[in-house]
C-alpha cells in the first residue's frame, strides 16, 4: 500500500460514511454539509485519479451548491435544526432493500467484469486536453450547456420570485383590465356569491 492507496481508502470511507449519515442526522444543516463532505471526498479521489481540475472544481461547485441547499432546507423544513428528532421516511424497508439490492447487483457486476487497463499518463496535460476538447469537437455540447444554463436561470427566477410581469405569483393569473385601474376583463371567476348570476 502506498500513500495514494491509503489516501484513497480514507477518502472513500469519508465519502460513503458521510453519504450515509446524510439520511440519519436530524439537523438539516448538518445533512447538507455531510453531503458536501461526501462530494469533497469524491473530488479528492478524482485528484488522486489524475483529474486535478475536475476534483478541485467539484469541491468548489459542491461547496456552493450545498450552501444553497442548506439555505433552502432550513427555509422549508419544519424543525430545521432537528431539536425534536424525527424520522421523516416512508416505505422504509422497501427503500433499504432497494438500496442494498442495487449495491449488491452493481458490485457483483463489477467483480465479474474484466476491465481493460489503459491508465492516463501521469504527465498528461489533462486540463489543456479538456480545454481543447471544449473548443474543438465538443463545441456543440458546450454551447448547448451554456444555453441550457441560461434557460435554467430564467426558469428558476420565474418560478421562485413572487413579483412577475403579470402580477404577484400568489394571486393567480388575472387578465388585464380594459381601462387603467379597472376590473379585470373577461369572465369573472365564480365564487360562493357568484351563484346569483345564474338566476337572472
Amino acid at each position, binding site marked *: 500500500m502506498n500513500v495514494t492507496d491509503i489516501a484513497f481508502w480514507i477518502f472513500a470511507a469519508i465519502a460513503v460514511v458521510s453519504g450515509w449519515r446524510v439520511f440519519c442526522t436530524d439537523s438539516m444543516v448538518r445533512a447538507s454539509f455531510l453531503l458536501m463532505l461526501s462530494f469533497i471526498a469524491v473530488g479528492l479521489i478524482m485528484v488522486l485519479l489524475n483529474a486535478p481540475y475536475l476534483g478541485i472544481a467539484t469541491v468548489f461547485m459542491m461547496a456552493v451548491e450545498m450552501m444553497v441547499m442548506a439555505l433552502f432546507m432550513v*427555509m422549508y423544513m*419544519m*424543525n430545521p435544526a432537528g*431539536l*425534536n*428528532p*424525527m424520522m421523516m421516511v416512508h416505505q422504509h424497508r422497501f427503500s433499504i432493500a432497494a438500496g442494498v439490492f442495487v449495491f449488491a447487483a452493481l458490485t457483483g457486476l463489477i467483480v465479474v467484469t474484466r476491465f481493460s487497463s489503459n491508465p492516463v499518463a501521469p504527465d498528461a496535460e489533462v486540463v489543456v486536453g479538456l480545454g481543447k476538447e471544449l473548443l474543438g469537437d465538443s463545441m456543440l455540447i458546450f454551447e448547448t450547456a451554456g444555453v441550457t444554463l441560461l434557460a435554467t436561470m430564467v426558469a428558476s427566477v420565474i418560478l421562485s420570485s*413572487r413579483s412577475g410581469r403579470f402580477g*404577484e405569483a*400568489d394571486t393567480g393569473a388575472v387578465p388585464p383590465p380594459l381601462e387603467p385601474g379597472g376590473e379585470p376583463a373577461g369572465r369573472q371567476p365564480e365564487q360562493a356569491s357568484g351563484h346569483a348570476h345564474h338566476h337572472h
Partner: protein
Amino acid sequence: MLERLAARAPVPLFVAMGRDRAPAVERLLQSADIDVTATPRHASILLVAGRVRDSDQAYLDRIHDQLPHPRATFWWGDEQGDDVDEAQRAASFDDPVISLRALYRNLISGAHASETHRLPDEPPAPWRGKGDHGQGGEGMMGGVPYGRMMPMPPTPDIRDGLALDVYTTQIGPFMPYWPAGLVLEVTFQGDVIQSAEVVQPPYPPRDVDRVPFDRLLHETTALAQIERARAAHHLVCIARLLSLVGLPTLSRRAQILAARVRANETIAIAPLRKAAARSGLTAALAPGLGRIDDRLARELGGPAQRAAGHAIDDRSDNPMYKRLDFTPVTQTQSDCRARLAQWFDEAEQALALVSAAPDAMIGQGALVEAPWALRAPPVDYRLTELLPGLEWSEALLVLNSFDSAALCRMAPLEAP
C-alpha cells in the same frame, strides 16, 4: 505570564447605558485604555453608566450573567446597586480609567474574585427526561426542547408573502446602537421586522444636555453655552450613525469633538463632515430610508420637523438671535439622510453663532429652541409603525436618526 500580559490589555468593557449618565462616562469611553465591546460575551467588566429603572434590573442581571468569567461589575454615577456587595462603585471625582484598570488587573490576577451568577441556574423550562428522546420536545414542533419552545407557527411575510416561521422576542434595553432603555417586542421573519411593540420607552434626554436650557428658566444664560450644548448633543447623535455604518473611528472623533465643545474649546465640524462624506456616509443611508410623513414631522417638532422642510424654530422670535440674523436651516426630504444633514447643519450653525456673539446673554425665561422638541404635544403615532418591513440594519439606522426626545414621543408609554 499569561496573566501579566492579559492585565495590560485595554479593559474589555460592556456598557449598559443608564439615564442621566455624566459626560465623564463619554470621556471614559474615548480612552484608548478601554475596549468597548458589542456584546457582553467579549467583555470582562460590565459598566452600568447612570441610573437604571427598577424594571431594568432583571435585564441588567441577565447581561451580567452573560459575561464570561472572570467578570465584575462597575457602577458609575449611580445610587442603585447598594445591595450588591461586590460591585465596584466610583464617585464622579475619581479618575474612572484608573479605577477600572485597577479593577481589571485584580480580576485577572485573581485578587478580585469573579462574580457569580445573579439569576438562578435553571433552564427556562424544565425539560430533562421529557419527550421521546429526553430532549423535552414533543412531536415535530411541540414541547420545550432543551427548555425553550420551538419558533412560532408561520404567518405570511409582509414583503413577499411566503409563510415561514416567525421569531418573536423582546430586544433591549442595553443593545449596542440601541436607544438606551428602549425595550421592543419584535417579530422577525428572517432578518426583516414584521411587527414591533413598545414594551418600555427609551430614557428621556439626558440632564447634561438640558442643563443650560433648564437654567434659562431661572436666570440669564450665555448664548454660547446654549449653542454649545446644542452642538454637542447633535454631535453625539451623529456619532451613533457613524458607528452604525461601520465607521467607528470617525464616530469616536465625533464624540471627542462633542466633549471638547462641552469643555468650551473652539472646534471645527467641517473636517469631520468632509471625512464622513468622503467615506460615503451619505451614500450608506439609502435615499428615502426612514421617511416620515408631514403630520408626524410637525408633531415631533425640533430637528425632525426642520428636516421635513418646516422652518419652525423658537429662536426665530428671540431678539438676540434676530440681531444675529438667525434663520433656521431646513432640509426637504424628511428621511434619515435629511435628519443627519440637519444635525450637521444645526451643529455648524450653533458654533457659528457662538463665534459671532461669544458674550451675548439671553434673558431669563426667554423662549429658546432645545436641541430636540420639548414643547411639542404628545403624539398618537407609535415608533413601531416605522419599523415593520425594514431589514435589521435599516431599522437601527431609522431608530438612530431620531433624538431620544423624539423617540420617547413616538413610544408613548411614559411621558418624557
